[in-house]
């Protein structure tokens, strides 16, 4: 292989990308050619100076980095409202009180109605009792039936 051919292969030789046969030819040439040897050594020195290997981060640094990335991900990963409030300790008792209040508002007024209905149920059967649920205006809305007459 001619000197110019070897020169054209020096980069690939430096990069370790030559096929085995060509690498052998270049190595043989380098044993006797100071110019090519000098060029390779100069480039290798330049590459070491320009591209030093950066320090490997320690475990603590990697953990800090990971936490920083996860913190930036967290807002986007959350849904539009926070489901966390459902796990609040106060929620179950509050729901219970609310349910009790609703039940109480339904049961207490119904006691008077029930007394009437029980009597009607006993006297005239279910159809007549159900008919009592219809307010004088024709609505079957229970709330309408509770309106106090003027």
């Amino acid at each position: 292989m001619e000197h110019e051919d070897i020169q054209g292969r020096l980069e690939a030789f430096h990069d370790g990308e030559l096929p085995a046969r060509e690498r052998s030819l270049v190595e043989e040439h380098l044993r006797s050619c100071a110019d090519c040897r000098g060029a390779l050594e100069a480039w290798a020195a330049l590459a070491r100076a320009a591209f030093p290997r950066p320090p490997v981060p320690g475990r603590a640094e990697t953990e800090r980095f990971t936490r920083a990335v996860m913190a930036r991900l967290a807002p986007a990963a959350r849904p539009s409202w926070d489901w966390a409030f459902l796990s609040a300790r106060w929620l179950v008792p509050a729901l219970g009180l609310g349910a009790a209040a609703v039940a109480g508002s339904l049961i207490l007024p119904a006691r008077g109605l029930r007394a009437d209905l029980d009597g009607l149920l006993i006297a005239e059967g279910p159809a007549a009792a159900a008919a009592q649920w219809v307010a004088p205006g024709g609505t079957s809305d229970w709330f309408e039936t509770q309106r106090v007459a003027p």
Partner: protein
Amino acid sequence: MRKHHARVLGLCLSMLQDESEAQDAAQEAFLKAYRALDRFDARAAFSTWLYRIASNQCLDALRRRARRKEESLDDAAANERAPEFWEAGRPGERLEAADLAARALKTLSPDYRLVLTLREMDGLTYEEIASTLECTVDAVKARLKRARRQLLESLRHLAGSGSV
């Protein structure tokens, strides 16, 4: 993330030469990778895909920096013949100084800087570089050749201008 942190941060440090910028770029790379996970199709290795994202992040940072005109080549050097790889060791030329090398590196275009970093700092093969940059092996060889010539040209210019 823990598995790839060192390598991604190393690339960003080498490319950007600034600790704070490198940390930002590395974080952005992982964030982009996380958000694009559904588009990872496993044709390349995950590390290659992640490295590609990190490389693009560094390129964007360098291009932003170049637009701010913080570093530029002297126009007078543009007309000189670029030296060849085998001329790197010409007698009388002091090309080994680390600071000179680092300053010359800063004058490279972002694409040339990236391909040289992947090859010289990271030790990637031509195939791996081609996969990361999504180009052919021939394109990698051509880009490396031009990048090395430009680096040598910058070094010669800096050394010749008495900036050692």
